[in-house]
């Protein structure tokens, strides 16, 4: 009766369940069931063993928010030139789009594509620096998702569902593996512009304990809320106060040794105290050389915001942060409903050198072997125009790229149809992408479950299968 867990546990009776559980076949499920019987309490961040040997220690998710146009970046479609100005052929069927643009004419890519590196991977001239890393990239050209609108789609790319309320992938990661650095959050989110659409829902712990939610790092020297003591308390003052709190707690804890939570709370104050110095240190870029900063484009105002975040991401993964998510064009910057030329020129420029710099730097430091870098947005864009020179949302087919730990580089996987509208060969749903990312971190998405409202919930809901082609 050993089988992979679905979102429900396929046994016929409770008795049978416990027989199975007792024989060790269902250890994972049992622990999550116990979690349901007794709400999670206490210290939840202890490191836990992975399901299998991990290829990646950390993930840096470069989230191009708003929907970068795959057909203008990584998925060249000569057919669009041919059909430029004509309506979409009837064979593609009827579509509901976000802006009702499905009857608009096809628009050719305004950019030029070239093959790069030994692998001959196609990249457009919007991404010249990233193109130099072509042999390190695996481009997945056949992604698809369910949402039509940004907020649902950004939410799905983070949580698996277009409706808010589920845990984010980073939260699942901390839940599954615990933390590797007690002095820093395990899941960090940064933005380069406005708040991402949907805000905190995208790095929420959902129904998991709040401990697992992502921490939004702010720019500046106090990246975390309440990191600086109120009232300008000095370090000595704080230590003196904390030692008094500790003495109070010791008295209260007398005869309560069985209550591990009281002890965990005492320790949480010590951790918080250490975070006060570890947090600012982690984002203190004065420790980086000018050459490194230039590598990330920090010497140019156009590339400074994202370059700074990319460099901070490297520092964070060096310090054991497991999941770093960097929004580029946060607040839907890439959403090029009109004048895609100007829009994408801006955001490609903002991200090209910083991302290339990150790949170079990670490699030079030997970190690329243990860090998975993922690039993508919540969806791609349509082959037909909007307002003459823009493109509408396209969740039916779009591209993402993967580099680093556990990835088979220098290849393009899957295809969209001739006009780049829909994924055709080897379609990869968001759940498949999530399953693969978790796999590289050493987790089986089917075993990573949490009992919630009667269901053994998992990150991929009822879907997800590994994209083996991506794996080295």
């Amino acid at each position, binding site marked *: 009766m050993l089988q992979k867990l679905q979102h429900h546990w396929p046994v016929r009776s409770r008795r049978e369940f416990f027989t199975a559980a007792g024989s060790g076949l269902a250890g994972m499920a049992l622990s999550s069931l116990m979690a349901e019987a007794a709400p999670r309490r206490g210290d939840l961040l202890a490191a836990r063993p992975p399901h299998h040997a991990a290829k990646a220690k950390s993930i840096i998710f470069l989230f191009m928010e708003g929907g970068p146009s795959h057909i203008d970046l990584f998925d060249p479609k000569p057919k669009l030139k041919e059909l430029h100005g004509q309506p979409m052929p009837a064979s593609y069927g009827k579509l509901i789009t976000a802006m009702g643009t499905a009857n608009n004419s096809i628009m050719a890519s305004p950019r030029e594509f070239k093959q790069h590196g030994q692998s001959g991977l196609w990249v457009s001239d919007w991404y010249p620096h990233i193109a130099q890393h072509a042999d390190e990239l695996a481009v997945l050209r056949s992604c698809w998702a369910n949402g039509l609108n940004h907020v649902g789609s950004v939410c799905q790319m983070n949580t698996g569902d277009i409706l808010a309320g589920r845990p984010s992938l980073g939260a699942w990661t901390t839940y599954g593996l615990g933390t590797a650095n007690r002095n820093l959050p395990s899941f960090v989110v940064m933005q380069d512009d406005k708040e991402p659409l949907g805000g905190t829902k995208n790095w929420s712990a959902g129904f998991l304990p709040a401990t697992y939610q992502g921490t939004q790092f702010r720019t500046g020297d106090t990246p975390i809320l309440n990191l600086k003591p109120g009232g300008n308390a000095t370090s000595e003052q704080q230590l003196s106060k904390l030692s008094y709190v500790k003495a109070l707690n010791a008295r209260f804890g007398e005869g309560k040794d069985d*209550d591990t939570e009281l002890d965990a709370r005492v320790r949480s104050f010590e951790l918080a105290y250490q975070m006060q110095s570890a947090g600012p240190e982690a984002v203190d870029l004065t420790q980086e050389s000018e050459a490194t900063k230039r590598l990330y484009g920090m010497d140019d105002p156009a590339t400074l915001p994202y370059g700074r975040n990319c460099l901070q991401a490297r520092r964070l993964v060096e310090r054991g942060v497991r999941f770093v998510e960097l929004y580029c064009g946060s607040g839907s910057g890439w959403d090029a409903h009109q004048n895609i030329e100007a829009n994408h020129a801006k955001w490609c420029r903002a991200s090209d050198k910083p991302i290339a710099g990150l790949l170079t730097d990670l490699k030079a430091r030997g970190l690329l072997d243990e860090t998975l870098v993922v690039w993508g947005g919540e969806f791609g864009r349509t082959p037909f125009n909007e307002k003459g020179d823009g493109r509408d949302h396209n969740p039916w087919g779009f591209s993402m790229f993967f580099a680093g730990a556990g990835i088979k580089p220098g290849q393009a996987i899957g295809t969209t149809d001739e006009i780049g509208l829909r994924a055709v060969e080897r379609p990869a749903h968001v759940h498949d992408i999530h399953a693969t990312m978790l796999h590289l971190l050493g987790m089986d998405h089917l075993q990573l479950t949490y009992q919630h409202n009667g269901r053994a919930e998992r990150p991929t809901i009822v879907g997800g299968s590994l994209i083996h082609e991506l794996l080295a």
Partner: protein
Amino acid sequence: MRATLILISVASAFAAESAPKAFTAIQKRWWAIQPVREQTPPVATLSRIDAFVHAKLQGKGITPNPSADPVTLLRRATLDLTGLPPTPEETQAFLSDRSPEAFAKVVDRLLASPRYGERWGRHWLDLARYADSEGFKADETRPNIWRYRDYVIQSFNEDKPYNRFVQEQLAGDEMFPGDAQALVATGFNRHFPDEYNARNLYQRRQELLNDITDVVGSTFMGLTFGCARCHDHKFDPILHKDYYRLQSFFAGLHIDDQATLASPKAQQEYQAQLKVWEKATFDVRKEIASVLKIQRDFRVKENFDKFPEEIQASVTCAPEKRTPMQWQMYYKAMPQLTFDDAEVAKGIRGDVKAAYQKLAAKLKTFDHLKPAELPITQAMVEDVAAIPSTHVLRGGAYDAVDEEVQPGFLSILDPSDLRLPAAPAGKSGRRTALAKWLTDPANPLTARVIVNRVWHYHFGQGLVATPSDFGLMGARPTHKELLDDLSYRFVRDGWSIKRLHREIMLSETYRRSSDFAAAAGQADPENATLWRYNRRRLEGESIRDSMLAVSGLLNTKMNGPGVFPPLPAGVETRGGWKRDESLEEARRRSIYIFVRRNTRYPMFEAFDMPDTHESCARRNQTVTPSQALELMNSEMVLDWSKGLAARVLNDAGLSREAMVDRAYRLVYARPASDDEKRLASDFFTRHQPILAARSAPLVVPDKLPSGIQPIEAAVLVDLCHALFNSNEFLYIN
């Protein structure tokens, strides 16, 4: 329709599983659907609760803990019922009352306090996924939904019978026409997160119905109906069909955000006066309309064009020809096609704008003729013309339509289609039937579920440990006879929640100490036998309210729109947080703080407040460094520590011993021992030179009494701050 194809392909994966099936023996024997029967307590000399608990303990040979000491008990009861700690005066009164009814008097006093509804109402708001905003991208404010929050508080405070409470929330408009509070109550089904500007409104409507179905199933029945959205429930006897049978009770609902609460007379007067204003402003309004026409038409067309054709047709169709589904689409689409003048005016420039502004100013001169706005609420009501047929959906996909179903209950209890009761004009009676079924004394689930919830909130653990899952995969009741005994009498004696509180709190079981005992702890580490009371951390709201109360800063003003206390620097608010709230308002109880789905109040977020997108029956109780950062570093907690220090200085005078003793009495509801006074004295001695070495100004109370050295007061502030950070304050013991 590619999106459709995708959904269908997901759906087809389940199609093979959806064949009808017979219920298994285990499902038929499922405890939660057996009738609730009157029980005979196993021991005659104990209270009924204690008798059932005693029998279990005895069966396992476990000796329960003795009663907690009076101070612990008083603090427990007070925090439990009101979310606030007892005052030193209340403590003194209780300690000096030697009568055997002393504790019963405390419980009665607490139940009569308006603070009670503010505490227990919050539990219900968790279940109702209450929020003051829509969620999704725009997260617009729901400007009048706070009336539902106040309704809940009031209902708890007046001990509204639970059956009536259920009926009002599910069918208030139908069962109690003309009752304003019952109309407010229908807001229960209005709390779904919503994206009002969605394009695919068929899908959106289905998502709302799913949300309502799931929440009604879990909140009132304690069942995981959501598991049957795509297929028959894998364990519980909830058929795929039953999910949609339940859903169809709500098929005719639509949002009414302008539901009036005024009496017919007040409405008439309003209308009469409105006519006066309309007449006086006829010309100027006509001019405004003409100035804004081009821009308005543009805005309407812009949104209209984005809809799929079927939805456009629902809007343009003549009302008498609209099908029920077209009515549903119409109700969902119209808010996207309706703009007030000010909104339209945002898009105009130059001369047009100047002309508009002039006219708008002129219109304003007639404001004295305008009647005062009537109170409105955000309700969920039915339009009998807008009840589309309900179908089983394959894989839960909105457009994978299967067999049609009629309203009905769990098939295992009653497989027949519903016979609708008589209903007022314009109503179908569907929800009346559901509410009556749920509140029928013979319903096996409703009373058990609410009684268990009350128990859960009192003990931190229900008799059924999974309060919203009474299914076969949920926890079994640890004391089934007790649950049935309480449930049976709960219904028999009038569905009174206060009565239930009283019975529970006066039991020995509730009063037990939370101390550890080696033998009992070994025999039953999970405390399933209730040999002791479960120590637990205060919820975020209680931590904040308790600090405010203890420091003497709490503003106990009740009701009204949500308030916006200042946020720590660096919290992104997307413009959704009012910045100019007065200090007085900022110090109101936590339940009145505006609940914005996309910007949860940071302190509550850190302390496990649920995220309001789904019903939450059990909060997590985590320990995180961000909680510690909040407590030890936030300016707000420091500010309240200043308040507490001021109060202590005012009450106790200048002697350190007296100060420490007073602070202990306020924070811990007990005097400081000699040992503790020494500990505090050491802190004074150690801390003072550290503060003297600071370069920044000292943090001291705003008004210092004469004779006190600022540095002494500054140490006291830090001492108070330390007490607020300590476990004895943060835990119900």
